């Protein structure tokens, strides 16, 4: 698998939320650099996906996390929060790099889209 964006590009971190906010429901919709992003707390790890589902534009932050996977509220697509890969489908949800510093969650607003498997 390849990423569309090379890792050599400079990192771009925007403060998106606090861990305390995210802990309340373990999912949170935020807007980062004008882009709707859904944050998920899975165990102790934070992941960020585009909030708007690639399928039918439902809001992933209104979904749920079960067994380590994000479930879209629209049609129950199962999405890997780390890669954006959709179970049993070729589509891929754009994901974002996340960095934690203290209580702050930083997100890189540039989306990563994994290419299809060959």
């Amino acid at each position, binding site marked *: 698998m390849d990423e569309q964006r090379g890792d050599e590009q400079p990192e771009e971190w925007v403060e998106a939320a606090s861990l305390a906010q995210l802990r309340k*429901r373990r999912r949170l919709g935020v807007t980062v650099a004008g882009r709707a992003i859904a944050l998920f707390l899975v165990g102790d790890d934070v992941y960020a996906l585009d909030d708007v589902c690639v399928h039918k534009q*439902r809001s992933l932050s209104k*979904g749920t996390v*079960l067994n380590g996977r994000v479930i879209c*509220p*629209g049609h*129950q697509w199962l999405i890997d929060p780390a890669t954006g890969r959709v179970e049993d489908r070729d589509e891929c949800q754009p994901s974002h790099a996340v960095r934690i510093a203290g209580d702050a969650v930083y997100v890189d607003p540039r989306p990563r889209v994994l290419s299809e*498997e060959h």
Partner: protein
Amino acid sequence: MTTRTSSGGTGGSSPLTELESVVVAGAGQTAAVAARTLRRRGFEGRVTLVGAEPHVPYQRPPLSKEYLAGEDDRDELYLLTPDWCEGNGVELRLGAAATAIRPAERALELADGSSLRADALLIATGGRPRRLPGIDGDRVRYLRTIDDADRLRAELRPGARVVVIGAGFIGCEVASTAIGLGAQVTLVEQAARPLGHVLGDLMGDVMAALLRTSGVDLRTGEKVEGYAETASGAVVTTSGGAYLEADVVVVGAGMVPNVEAVTGAGIETAGGIPVDEYCRTSVDGVYAAGDVALQWRPELGRRVRAEHFDNANAQGMAAAKNILGGTSAHTAPPWFWSDQFGRNLQHAGHCDGADRVVVRGRVEDFDFVAFHLSGGVLRGAFAVDRGGDLAVARQLIGAGAVPDPDVLRDEDADLTELFDTL
């Protein structure tokens, strides 16, 4: 035949030496999923899908929603492209209905007079719309195929007078799409409530409210008594005394399973093709799945035929695995969705027969999930714009949970905590 590698990460390990060919009667959702599963599991023998329609396998759910509304193109509906089929060695025999099977030879006879022999047969012939006697004419439409949808799509114009007969899911979705396109919609249902037989009285009332507040003239408890066509349109008369003039009349009266291919083959066909939870019919080497299959449901103690996308997927997948020698039971609770009037409806398990309904959210705002319990056990859930909660409910139903009603009701409580009490 070329060697294939597993692309789904679920490669089979059995040598599959004895199985050389699989023929699927049908080329819809179930057949497409079965074909994909066979290849993903490493089956390298012949796979043939026999479709009555001239089209490559396509999704049906959008036909009453996005596709009917003109938002989706045909290309977005296709499940298996000709390129995929060629690359994976899946043969499509399209425009030739399966007419009969010869169980002793595991052969399938086609309408064009040819026949196909296989080591395993999967019957996934789906169904056809139930016709209503006496309602027949140039302005009557049924909706099952992409061609049906194309024809209806051209007729749902702004200001068009549309009468929909039957407030099941297809009827309600067509009503929603027609309203969205600016048509005037009257929906006639002989039962007291829309979708009442699936959702129960309480939720049937919620659906009635959603339809009415969305601009549908909903007439429940009324039977269609007459149908006639004039020079300028059609007239539907009802037992409630209504005289409804229409440009187009859409009938959504359920479907009839296409069981004809197995008639006379030693398989029961009343109400569908009976299968166990492994999608096996009573004849060795013959499987059935999807809309046509009447599957044994251990948790209900009876057979159920389901007409939904998820059922088609799950049974198609289970049948394929079992054809390859697996023991994959389809026991997950049924699940389906419907998108109507800008709302996302989802249903899991079985809501009929509940002795208690616990609501989380606000019914009056169409933002809730209604948990249906029976003897304390969560049996079903119905949600409007609450797909996240419904996902949790689906798992709880599958686990046979006896949840604390206070947690179900309390918006501040995390539903996933209920997994800890299982």
